[in-house]
């Protein structure tokens, strides 16, 4: 049977999110490898930047449109998509493993009784078959797996597909389907989104600078905030400092916090408990600053400085200022 891929395009405030473009590119690539087709689906009201998907391999996008769909509704979105999949016999569904994607994909998999693989870091074709890989135990191990169901649902870990590679430009055709209100399952609806103090989330940041107990106290975290701002990054925290109440849980990186894969991760005064390492070891480049030369964090770092973070951070800020405006 030929492959028919459907890519879920996530929108917030009418804008397609970057992570969905990664899923679109993966879908385009797999459709070439398996000689099948790929379609995008977006659920929402007006979408301001829909043309962007033509840069990422999607020729066809279905837009389910209604004002009441502008905010996420797990019940309404899942029903629309699952019904659309059944009517059109899609057999591979791709999501990004974002807050919305990881909520929605399992509901749709259950509706379709489809096998589900979450948070995949690799989707490949081997001997004509799809094989997947995903981290388990917060990245302490990797699972290579297959799905034996007719329909397969996968979510892709953000920041694992390059958006700069050439060869994904296509002509886009958007088909808008106006949805009637009485067909919407609105048992659960998002009524508002509140951004936390305009700060970038660690889960979305390209650069993260994290602090642990070596920061000595919450009053010293401004040092990290200044550097984060300079680099356009986010501040992260170890579990120890979150549990001590120095920083909010939304900043916690690690097994009971967030799993992140930024371009650059700077660990300051973090010794590197196994739970923390699990959450950040997939970062492309890791820098460790710690006064204990035997701290486990140095073993997984690319570069390290042994020393007192409170002395090193002000110097680091000044040095970075020379290159970043």
């Amino acid at each position, binding site marked *: 049977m030929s492959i028919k891929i459907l890519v879920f395009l996530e929108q917030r405030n009418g804008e397609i999110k970057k992570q969905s473009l990664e899923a679109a590119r993966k879908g385009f690539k797999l459709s070439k490898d398996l000689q099948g087709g790929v379609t995008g689906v977006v659920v929402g009201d007006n979408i301001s930047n829909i043309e962007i998907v033509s840069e990422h391999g999607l020729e066809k996008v279905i837009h389910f449109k209604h004002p009441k769909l502008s905010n*996420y509704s*797990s*019940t309404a979105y899942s029903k629309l998509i699952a019904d659309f999949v059944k009517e059109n016999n899609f057999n591979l569904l791709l999501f990004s493993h*974002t*807050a*919305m994607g*990881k909520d929605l994909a399992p*509901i749709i*998999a*259950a509706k379709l009784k*489809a*096998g*589900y693989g*979450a948070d995949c870091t690799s989707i490949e074709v081997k001997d004509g078959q799809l*094989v997947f890989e995903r981290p*388990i*135990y*917060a990245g*302490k*191990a*990797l*699972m*290579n797996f*297959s*799905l*034996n*169901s007719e329909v397969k649902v996968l979510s892709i870990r953000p920041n694992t597909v390059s958006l700069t590679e050439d060869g994904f430009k296509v002509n886009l055709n958007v088909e808008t389907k106006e949805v009637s209100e009485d067909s919407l399952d609105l*048992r*659960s*609806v*998002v*009524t508002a*989104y*509140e*951004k*936390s103090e305009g700060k*970038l989330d660690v*889960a979305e940041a390209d650069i993260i600078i994290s602090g642990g107990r070596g920061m000595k106290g919450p009053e010293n975290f401004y040092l990290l905030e200044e550097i984060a701002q300079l680099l356009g990054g986010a501040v992260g925290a170890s579990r120890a400092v979150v549990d001590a109440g120095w920083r909010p*849980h939304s900043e916690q990186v690690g097994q*009971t916090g967030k*799993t992140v894969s930024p371009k*650059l991760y700077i660990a300051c005064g973090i010794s590197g408990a*196994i739970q923390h390492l699990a959450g950040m070891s997939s970062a*492309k480049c*890791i*820098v460790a600053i710690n006064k204990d030369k035997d701290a486990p964090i140095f*073993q*997984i*770092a*690319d*570069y*390290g400085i*042994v*020393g007192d973070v409170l*002395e*090193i951070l002000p*110097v*680091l800020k000044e*040095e970075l200022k020379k*290159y970043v405006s």
Partner: protein
Amino acid sequence: MKIVVALSHVPDTATKIKIAQDRKNIDPSGVSFIINPYDEFAIEEALRTKEKFGGEVIAVTYGNDSAKESIRKALAMGVDKGILIKGDLNVDSLTVAEALASEISQLNTDIVFCGKQSVDYDSSAVGQMLAEFLNFPSISTVVKLEIEDGKVKAEREVEGGIEKVESSLPIVITAQKGLNEPRYASLKGIMAAKSKPIEEKTFDASNNRLVVNELKLPESKRKSKIVGTDASAVPELVKLLREEAKVI
């Protein structure tokens, strides 16, 4: 109110993972198992819901005999009874959700609490799948919950902020850290748990759709280069980040 909390019995987060001989499982030797950390927030919220509205809290687990330890812990915290559904452990989230739904659907449940993910397979999927099989709506990764007159208002954690969600009972809620501060079991609770019932059921897990080909440990290709021992190393570090790693 009829309240259910779904539990998962998982390796302690401090566990160093080793791969078993068959390359498809982890080596369980020396691994201590605990109640899934996020499930403790689910238990606490279930108990608070019972304290507010009255009723009963039932803990349901899919697993093997050793999972009784986690059920006992929940009973010691104040849960009224437990159900252990025994079945093959090498199964996907959908099978676990089907197994849980097969029992929970018979309980006339108003609300089900789960942890937002189990810290072994990390899929964040069972809660939402369970809701679908029960034909309930679900709200995942919840950090704040209010229930009044059958209406549910929740806040869920999303990238860069929170989403406010409105729904109604019956519902499945998956708990994120921050929802509450889980209580410790009292000595009285631990004693009482010994006489609380754990019902045992079985589930045929032959519908599993996920085939594990191989488990492996991630390879570390890190340089682990110590650039220097105090602030004087900073210029060299920044140079390396710019010219060698090319990340700033």
